[in-house]
């Protein structure tokens, strides 16, 4: 629910309650005032009757009251007070039951006591109550309507700078925050928000640049000693007097350096991918790309005695060609590296799906963890466990959906886009 819809509902609820309360209290107050007025009026009638009786020593005849009713009854005892009450009586004029205010009092004349009842209709009061309720309902309805209208027209316009700013932030790409523009607004809060967002974006940009610089520098600092070690070892093996034992030692040092430098490169690559530093995209012809790769890889696979089969249909994807290159290299390298002797590799490309299946270790990998960094299904000396995280990273920035299946001794990686 939108903020201003929420606000309107609360507003409306409070308004309805306030209106109802005020209508109720107005009604009570008016009732009270009118009843008092009527009581005073009736008291006047009572006085008239008493005066009449005192003067003429007989009860008034006929109807001395405009719209009231009066009745006399002999009584045994006299009352100390006049008793006022509200009752329902038949109104002859309106021909229906109606609320009346009545008073009961006693008169004494010539030793006779009469119980006199005077009743006057509360007709005016009824009309006033009705009017109050009508006005109240009409006001509530008008309030609801105007709120809805304000929601539709005014608030939407008032909140526009907010949504524009959200849109700008959502499409923000670190690395070019210069493109970040917030539309000008005269609303103080939004201007303040835009200023804060701009500051946060600039800060993030700064941190991003620092981080980028750091990763590049870190890589430089690592690569240089690695180059030195490698070059020194290469000098060493030029020495013809190396014993077999020494050769083996140097050889294993070479292998470790290779691993270390690959690890370093992979981490750098992951950082670059997640920093979205590969932002050049174009239409990549997957079929051509895979065919090119197969020329390279087939030779290696054949040399390792792997059977290969492929079925490629025309397919293309909008992505960074460099990333697709890395993705395919990783996938095809994995399919060969994690295979078994005389195993097989099967590649299928349809317009929106790439499936690479290969034989391998006879147990499924943990599908929830294979794409995390440094996951190794089994201790495999040749890989650093970053290959699949790189694949996942690439999939994330190019909107490819990766999945893994293990079925009848075959590991399949399926990519859809």
């Amino acid at each position, binding site marked *: 629910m939108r903020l201003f819809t929420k606000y309107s509902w609360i507003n409306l609820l409070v308004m309805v309650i306030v209106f109802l309360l005020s209508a109720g209290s107005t009604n009570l107050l008016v009732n009270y005032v009118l009843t008092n007025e009527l009581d005073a009026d009736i008291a006047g009638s009572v006085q008239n009757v008493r005066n009449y009786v005192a003067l003429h020593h007989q009860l008034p005849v006929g109807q001395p009251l405009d719209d009231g009713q009066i009745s006399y009854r002999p009584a045994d005892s006299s009352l100390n007070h006049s008793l006022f009450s509200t009752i329902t009586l038949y109104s002859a004029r309106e021909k229906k039951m109606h609320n009346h205010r009545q008073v009961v009092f006693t008169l004494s004349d010539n030793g006779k006591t009469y119980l006199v009842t005077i009743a006057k209709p509360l007709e005016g009061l009824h009309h006033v109550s009705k009017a109050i309720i009508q006005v109240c309902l009409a006001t509530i309805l008008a309030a609801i309507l105007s709120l809805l209208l304000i929601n539709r027209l005014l608030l939407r316009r008032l909140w526009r700078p907010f949504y524009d700013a959200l849109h700008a932030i959502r499409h923000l790409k670190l690395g070019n925050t210069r493109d970040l523009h917030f539309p000008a607004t005269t609303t103080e809060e939004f201007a303040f928000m835009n200023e804060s967002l701009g500051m946060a974006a600039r800060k993030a940009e700064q941190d991003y640049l620092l981080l980028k610089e750091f990763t*590049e520098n870190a*890589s*430089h*600092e*690592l*690569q*240089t000693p*690695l*180059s*030195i*070690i*490698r*070059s*020194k070892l*290469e*000098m060493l*093996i*030029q020495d013809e007097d190396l014993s*077999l034992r020494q*050769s*083996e030692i*140097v*050889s294993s040092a*070479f*292998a470790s*350096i*290779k691993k270390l*430098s*690959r690890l370093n*490169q992979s981490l*750098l690559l992951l950082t670059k991918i997640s920093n979205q530093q590969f932002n050049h995209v174009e239409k990549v012809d997957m079929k051509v790309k895979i065919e090119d790769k197969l020329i*390279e*890889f087939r*030779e*290696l696979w054949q*040399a*390792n005695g792997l059977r290969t089969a492929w079925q490629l249909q025309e397919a293309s994807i909008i992505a960074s060609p*460099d990333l697709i*290159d*890395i993705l395919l*290299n*990783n996938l095809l*390298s994995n399919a*060969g*590296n994690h295979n078994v002797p005389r195993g097989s590799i099967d590649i299928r490309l349809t317009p929106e799906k790439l499936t690479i299946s290969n034989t391998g270790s006879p147990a499924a990998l943990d599908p929830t963890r294979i794409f995390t960094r440094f996951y190794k299904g089994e201790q*495999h*000396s*040749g*890989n650093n466990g970053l*290959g699949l995280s790189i694949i996942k990273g690439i999939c994330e920035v190019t909107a490819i959906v990766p999945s893994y299946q293990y079925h009848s001794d075959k590991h399949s990686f399926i990519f859809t886009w």
Partner: protein
Amino acid sequence: MKLLIIEDQPELSESIRSYFTHANFICEVAYDYHMALEKVHDHDYDCIILDINLPLGNGFGVLKELQFAGKADGIVIISARHSLDDKVLGLNLGADDYLTKPFHMAELAARVAAIIRRKTFAGKNKIILGGLILDLQGREVKGPKGIIDLTRKEYDLLVYFIGNKNKVVTKEAIVEHLWGDSVDMADNYDFIYSHIKNLRKKLMLAGCPDYVTAIYGMGYKFVAAEGEKQ
């Protein structure tokens, strides 16, 4: 052949110098930006190996100076920055090649050899090594007994070996050269054995001596007495 090595790390610079000196290059070294500018202004080199991160300046500055002086020819950038932007910038500024650290010395030697061949023989170059003639443009190899039919990989391997004559080249350096950095192979490099075996067999069938010696556990060595001639 004169070679200038602009690299601020003395250890790495020394390794490169030593490797190329053994291959009969005359090597000079520069350790910082100013020294590099001084050297390139005063002398002409057949090839310059240039590091990008230098004290007191950077390699791109040296490249710009070289370009300004009309000497931006025969430059290999060696950089720890594996960044496409840097590579594109370097090549646009007139560098011939870009190699990311850590590299194999043999790879650097092969790149330098290729640049020197291109510079010296202006495209119509041939390598003549004893009875072996390589036409680099037509990618054709002739032995004493006639044309040798080599596969693409075997041919690349031969050129690579010739660029690293009399040096021990590791198997992983060969793999990286032939298949590039992209192919991440497990530790097993035995598959290159068949390529080398076929190359040796074809060369010997064509009447060449057995140039390639296997160095146990390490790699291979291309042994040839004569220098490279046109």
